[in-house]
Every structure is written in C-alpha cells, then in structure tokens.
C-alpha cells in the first residue's frame, strides 16, 4: 500500500487480498474543497462471451502495479489538476460473482475533472498495470484472459496493445 500527499492532494493505492469493500473508497475521499466525487466499481460478472462464470482469480505483481498506478495518477493530475484526490483499490485471489475486484475514487473541486480522471484511471489500469485474471466456468473449465502486451515498444509507460483483449 502507498499513501501520500502532494500539494494537499491525497493518494492511496492498495492491492488487497480478496475482494474490495465499497465503503473503503468514500471513507477516504472527504475533502471540503471538493465538489465532485466520482467512483467506479468493477465487479465480477456471471457471463463472458457466452460462458457462465462462477468466479475470477486475480493475480498481481504488487510492486510494479503500485509503481505503474503511481505513474498513471501523476498523469491524471497533470491533465486534470494537482488537487485531485485519488484512491485505487484492487483485489486479488479468487473472487465470486458480484464481488468488487477494483474500486477507483477521484475527487476534485469540480465534477468534470472527477469524471474524466476516474475514467482515465480505470482505462489505463486495464492496459498498463501488471494484473491478470483467470475466469472459472460452470463446466469446471478455467481460462486466463488475453490482455495487453507490455513488451513491444518499451516499458509499461510505452505499452502497445498486443492480443485483442476479451471484454472484461
């Protein structure tokens, strides 16, 4: 977990064992100067590409994930303001349908920056942060989902979309 302040902006990044508790996000984003709070929750759903999903297992390279998330948050602040408070929580291990796998909360003085910052964070997380997921199906089969290759053009900040990602 990393937690820091920058020009009064709050940042929290945490990779959790198990699912994310939704209450953790709003608890962290209390800033009287911020009028806009945007929160995204990603949950395990029960159907993907026509297959009935019973659970998803998440794996993470924690150190590199935290590092890349820190970079992504800095990018969001450079686009939408240094005052943005951010919390990113990601679960690991086997999560059941309906459980929260990822939560992103962004607050800022105004709603536009909060919405855009939150969207940016989840979209970049999906293509740049070293997290992988394996779906488990009702027929007993399991499959690691395809994703975005990090290696083609350079480091994680120079990522290139390799294989077509299945909707996740």
């Amino acid at each position, binding site marked *: 977990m990393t937690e820091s302040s920058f020009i009064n902006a709050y940042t929290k990044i945490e990779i959790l064992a198990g699912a994310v508790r939704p209450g953790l996000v709003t608890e962290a984003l209390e800033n009287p100067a911020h009028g806009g709070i945007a929160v995204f929750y*990603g949950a395990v759903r029960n159907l993907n590409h026509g297959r009935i999903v019973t659970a998803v297992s*998440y*794996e*993470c*390279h924690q*150190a*590199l*994930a935290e*590092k890349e998330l820190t970079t992504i948050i800095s990018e969001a602040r450079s686009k939408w303001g240094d005052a943005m408070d951010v919390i990113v929580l*990601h679960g690991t291990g086997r999560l059941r349908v309906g459980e929260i*796998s*990822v939560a992103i909360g962004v607050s800022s003085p105004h709603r536009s920056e909060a919405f855009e910052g939150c969207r940016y964070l*989840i979209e970049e*997380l*999906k*293509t*740049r*942060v*070293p*997290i*992988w*997921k*394996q779906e488990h199906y009702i027929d007993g089969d399991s499959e*690691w*989902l*395809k*994703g*975005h*290759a*990090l*290696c*083609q*053009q*350079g*480091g*994680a900040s*120079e990522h290139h979309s*390799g*294989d077509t*990602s*299945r909707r*996740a």
Partner: protein
Amino acid sequence: MTRHSQSRVLLFGKLKAYAVGEELRVATHPGMIPREFREAVAEELHRRCPDFSGVAELVSSAVATDHVLSEREPLGEALEYSLLPPVCGG
C-alpha cells in the same frame, strides 16, 4: 569476459502453470536483452517439460526487474527477473 549468473525467474498469469518443481533459474549476463532472456527461459522450460507449449505466452511477455525493460534494454546486474504476460486487470 562476460560474467554469467544463474538468475531467478518469476512467472505470472498463465505462465505460472509452468513453474512446477524446483525454482526456475536461467543463465544471464548483464548485456543480455529481453528476447535472449525469453529464449533462455523457453529452453529451460523445454528441458523440464519436453511438451512445453507456452511459447506464445512467453514471446508476448515483458521482462521486468524493478521496472519493465524495453526490448533493447540490457538486463543489467539483477539476479531476479519477472516475466509479465499481457495484462488485463480491473
């Protein structure tokens, strides 16, 4: 004279299925680049498991230490490297 080390290899995602038995180690040297590293890992995995079929995953995996190496970046002096398959978090 090129200095070789037996470096530890950490596998993630789908590649982890091949990390059975003893700890995975391959010979590396500071000037080695990611492509050569992946080839060394593939060779070792084939040695352990003659019907190893994860070449596609291996080829598309990034090599990382405390950062993801670019394809032209030498491995350097680290003694542990991670192979990161294409990512899909969230």
